């Protein structure tokens, strides 16, 4: 029953985000600030992880290809498939649940603890719209982050394969182009969009409704990371079942 109540409260929060909007000029500035904090601020870590994990995927594939009949282009093919289908959208989203999710929960949670949310409410401001709506809009730019992660992951794979002597550049690129199904990209971006909404709203929920003091802000951030990851994994399964099977 407790979980059902929480889910109900989560959807009530989503409804509350879209009623009584904040003044447009204020909202515009808030959205730009959130894009800077949540999207631009995450690019560094996403680029770093994508490039090196892409490289590792290529090396692992190459090292597991013992059979000489298998073409070297398979390294490019396997790298592309794993990066576009799973690594970039899902793995990066789990990392973002830690980075962006914790940031959202702790910033909103601290505002709750220090009565800043009460101050907004007393002034007649819809605090949910003021705090959560700009985060949802900012996270609509999240697919761009994933596109960059895909590009850098493949680039990392290319660098590892070519400079590690596992395949030539031509063989890797040939593998990248083999049996390319454009719908797989559509699938990747559909689930990225769903993850973006989860990344903006679940941490906001845990921050907004938290109770207690500084210690509880830390606990709420951890809980928010766990549940955001759980829902990313579950929705990943559901979307894959619906779109690919």
């Amino acid at each position, binding site marked *: 029953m407790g979980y059902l109540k929480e889910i109900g409260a989560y959807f009530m929060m989503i409804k509350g985000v879209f009623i009584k909007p904040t003044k447009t000029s204020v909202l515009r500035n808030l959205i730009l600030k959130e894009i800077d904090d949540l999207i631009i601020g995450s690019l560094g870590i996403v680029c770093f992880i994508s490039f090196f994990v892409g490289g590792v995927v290529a090396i692992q594939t190459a090292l597991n290809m013992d059979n000489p009949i298998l073409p070297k282009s398979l390294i490019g093919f396997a790298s592309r498939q794993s990066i576009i289908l799973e690594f970039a959208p899902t793995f990066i989203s789990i990392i973002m649940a830690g980075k962006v999710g914790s940031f959202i929960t702790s910033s909103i949670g601290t505002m709750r603890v220090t009565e800043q949310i009460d*101050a907004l409410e007393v002034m*007649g401001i819809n605090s949910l719209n003021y705090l959560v709506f700009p985060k949802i809009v900012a996270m609509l730019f999240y697919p761009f982050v994933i596109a960059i992660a895909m590009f850098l992951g493949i680039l990392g794979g290319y660098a590892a394969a070519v400079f590690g002597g596992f395949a030539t550049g031509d063989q890797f690129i040939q593998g990248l182009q083999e049996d390319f199904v454009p719908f797989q990209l559509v699938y990747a971006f559909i689930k990225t969009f769903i993850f973006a909404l989860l990344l903006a709203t679940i941490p906001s929920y845990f921050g907004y409704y938290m109770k207690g003091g500084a210690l509880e802000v830390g606990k709420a951030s951890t809980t928010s990371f766990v549940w955001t990851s759980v829902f990313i994994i579950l929705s990943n399964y559901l979307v894959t079942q619906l779109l690919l099977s």
Partner: protein
Amino acid sequence: MIEVKELKKGFGGDELVLKGISTKFEKGKTNLIIGQSGSGKTVFLKCLLGLFRPTEGKIVYDGEAYSELSSEKQRTLREQMGMVFQGSALFDSMTVEENIMFPLKMFTKQRKAERRERANEVIKRVNLINANNKLPSEISGGMQKRVAIARAIVNNPKYLFCDEPNSGLDPRTATLIDNLVQEITHEYDITTIINTHDMNSVMEIGEKIVFLQKGRLAWEGSKETIFRTDNEDVTNFVYSSDLFKKVREAVIKEHQ
């Protein structure tokens, strides 16, 4: 003026926190709510602010019952309220000046220069010096309270609420903050309600005092009448220290 009629508030259990409070808070006066911890002061204040919905009863703001207003009108009414929180509740990512300009930015069509001019007027009024560009974390507790007061009055509210405005301050700063709130109340002719534990505040600025006990209104009066009251609960609460007992005896003697 704010009129409270048979206000009751509970949180789902059998026990009510507020058990039927009726009183009036007049315009242009500093109205104090006092009482022991757990007496329901904070819940009462949150009901007055519209943060808690009463279980029963009405709160009437200048003839308009809050519960009977549409949600749009409730928000408009809230725009006329200023609040000074116990912990100041300043937006910690904004500078002092931005904090004070915030209500103007949200609710007026003023240009930035006009907002800054108005903010500087109230900054002067609350005697904040050289703090405009500082963050709340860079100023003292007393200054934070001044910023909170400035933010609360910048949009000319009709109602000012203060939750323990001088808690955590040294006695001199606490008195300055009390006097500032009282001066502003008279100057702007607003209805001010202060939730306090501080007996100095009671003696200094208690133009109307409401004493709550176990969720009920146990006594009401003013700083003049509180010296002579026979209500044992009030005297035990207000004059719990030897110093205040002696002050009371001296005042009664002087009146005789």
